[in-house]
């Protein structure tokens, strides 16, 4: 006599495997958690002036009529230093307007980084105690938001923007928003 119920563990196991295989084959990075802020307007934040750099505020974010980036960074964050090169590239070669939020940083150190590696930011503001970016649901620096011309958040990038991310994620999304 064949006992069918003895096959149940095997059947359950293969159902599990199908789910695993799907997850693997799709090769989706699960760390791309969508932000709850997507398609909402950029929250009001109040930042402080960094030396003589142009201050980032709600008004100049909306002024250009083109989509722009908001990048949160610090001089003490190693991935931010790696990302810097690609921010420079986007700002100089692709004419992307990038707004910077300097997070929990020392003004002196921040200025030194901008002087040493170049300033990719159209305007910049500082959030020394980290209270302003709470509204943005900051996960860890660096983080970058893509904002459309109407001031709505369209995309959130967690972690540094590397060459691959720049060419395959950030620039295509910016172009797509521009065409709309």
């Amino acid at each position: 006599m064949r006992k069918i119920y003895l096959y149940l563990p095997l059947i359950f196991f293969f159902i599990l495997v199908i789910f695993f295989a799907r997850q693997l084959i799709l090769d989706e990075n699960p760390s791309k958690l969508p932000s709850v802020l997507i398609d909402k307007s950029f929250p009001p934040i109040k930042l402080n002036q960094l030396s003589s750099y142009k201050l980032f505020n709600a008004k100049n974010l909306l002024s250009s009529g083109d989509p722009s980036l908001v990048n949160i960074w610090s001089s003490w964050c190693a991935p931010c230093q790696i990302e810097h090169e690609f921010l420079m590239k986007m700002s100089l070669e692709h004419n992307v307007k990038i707004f910077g939020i300097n997070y929990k940083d020392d003004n002196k150190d921040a200025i030194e980084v901008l002087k040493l590696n170049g300033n990719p930011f159209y305007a910049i503001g500082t959030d020394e105690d980290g209270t302003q970016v709470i509204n943005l649901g900051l996960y860890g620096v660096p983080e970058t938001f893509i904002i459309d011309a109407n001031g709505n958040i369209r995309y959130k990038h967690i972690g540094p923007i590397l060459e691959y991310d720049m060419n395959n994620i950030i620039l295509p999304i910016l172009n797509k928003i521009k065409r709309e």
Partner: protein
Amino acid sequence: MIIELGHYCLALVLTISLFQFLVPALGVRYNSIGLMSTSYITAYLSFILVCFSFASLTYAYVISDFSVSLVANNSHSLKPMIYKISGVWGNHEGSLLLWVLILTFYSAAVAFLGKRLPVKLISLVLSCQGLIAASFVSFILFTSNPFTRLFFPEIEGEGFNPILQDFGLAIHPPFLYLGYVGLSVTFSFSIAALLIGRVDTIWVKWVRPWTLIAWVFLTIGIALGSWWAYRELGWGGWWFWDPVENASFMPWLAATALLHSSIVAEKRDTLKAWTILLAIIAFSLSLLGTFIVRSGVLISVHAFASDPSRGLYILMLLIFFTGGALALFARKAASLKSGSLFQPVSREGALVINNIIFASSAATVLLGTLYPIFIDAINNSKVSVGPPYFEAVFIPLMVPAILLCAFSPMLSWKRAKLENILERVIAVFILAIMITAIFIFIYGGSISAFLGLFLGLWLILGTIYEFFIKVGIKLSFTKFLLRAFQLPRSAYGMSLAHLGVAIFVIGVTVSSAWRIDIEKPIQNGESVVINDIELIFLGIIDVNGPNWIAERGKFEVIRRGKNNEYLFPERRFYPASKVNTSEPAIMSNAFFDLYVVLGENLNNDESYSLRVYYSPFINWIWFGIMCMALGGILAVTDRKHRLGYSVKKNPKAIYK
């Protein structure tokens, strides 16, 4: 050169393991003792070679040979020696090598201790172990080679995550792997039993100590991991239901069920198919854990660098071993004759309920851990499942388990009369309720605190009562001591392990119900008061460590009637990896922990943000877990579980 030799040895192990798989299997097929006996030699040989291979990688770490890619990526010449060595397994490639080292160690141990077992059984077990070893060694060689050299050697290593530089964490993976891989032995034994088509006393007597050993190591490994998380992550929590934690917890739950079902299989010669299924599931959950941690299908705070191609390989291993074993089980399990029958109300019945509870809690943890994958597949949305789910489903499952645990050892085998134990159960129940009520009356507390305390006390009282009855009541004191002394160690082991559970439950309940959290900015000279403890901030000094610089806060703790103590929480900065970490300072004793975390300097002035957690009884959690592990060790060392347990037969006799 030594590195290349290590690499070469590992390649050799692949061949030997395939040999170890194939030749004994052929021997069994053609009934040749000569072919079967090769399994002993191959098992020793591959263990020796893997030892050398592992030692060569360790050597590269010790002398900081940055021409080896793995060392350059994970080590740093300024790291303290112990963390250089623990760095060997602090990464994907090296940890897999440790996995294989432990696997071949267990195979060699089975070969050594099993000399007197029927050669057919042992060679099938070793053949299965050989197949597992071969697949993991090829995984290392083809997708994650630790011996790769850099074309241009680095001058300095890239450090490793400073948060991982902790003694508890350094020794945590070896324990955990000793547990995970220990389950491979019971797995191989189950496969052998299914292939031979019978489960007899020899089989059960062998499987039980191996299960116990794996369970003890797994228990210690998990405890070390949570202890590290508690001291190092700076949140005062000790268990986060993170996918990686669950990956170690699921095999533990399955192994706990296996532990209990193998008692029934041993004593009553029944539940054999179920025991085999549990052994397969327990090892499969270890493999699944490996898959989850290394494939990147789930995010976790401490996942290894994930890589889909590795994920695919492990998934194939999982399909091969688990799928194969379950298919074999489905075909062969019906032929395993079950022994005696039993009534629902009996020791067996209680152990069956224990098994149902533990198996379903393993299933709920599995469901919760994998839920994000299911939901993503079904309606394409991302969710994450957190502690609220696990607490809501896991705790209600554990309540009946603990209720049962206190009195089921009092039940007799086969058929128990409830009337016989009802009086004792009621006595224990009333006493536990009364003590809990008094405690809650004095200190206040919620219903869940009441329930948790009651369960803990109920289990303690029940276990102690059961122990006294087992020794014998109405005896003179000397006679009692004599009889207690004669009890087998496994009886002590069980009581101690159950007491450990009770202590753990009390620790969890009290530390969460009466925990006090304080978060506030603090200035030099200011103080924080918690119950009767006063904590005064005495300022900051800068300190330099071997590979870090730190701001160290000084706090004075004043308690009435006690000497003043000082606490020194730190904020460290590791220049090599440009990472900030927080080193909490913990004042720890049997009744509470005072956990102080120094936050950031609040720019403008002298004030620092400060977090203080007061957790009463929190050390009971780890103390309870250690009692469980110690109980397991006592049971393993019981004479009747001696690993070299011999069969009074011609040692070279073949089964059947």
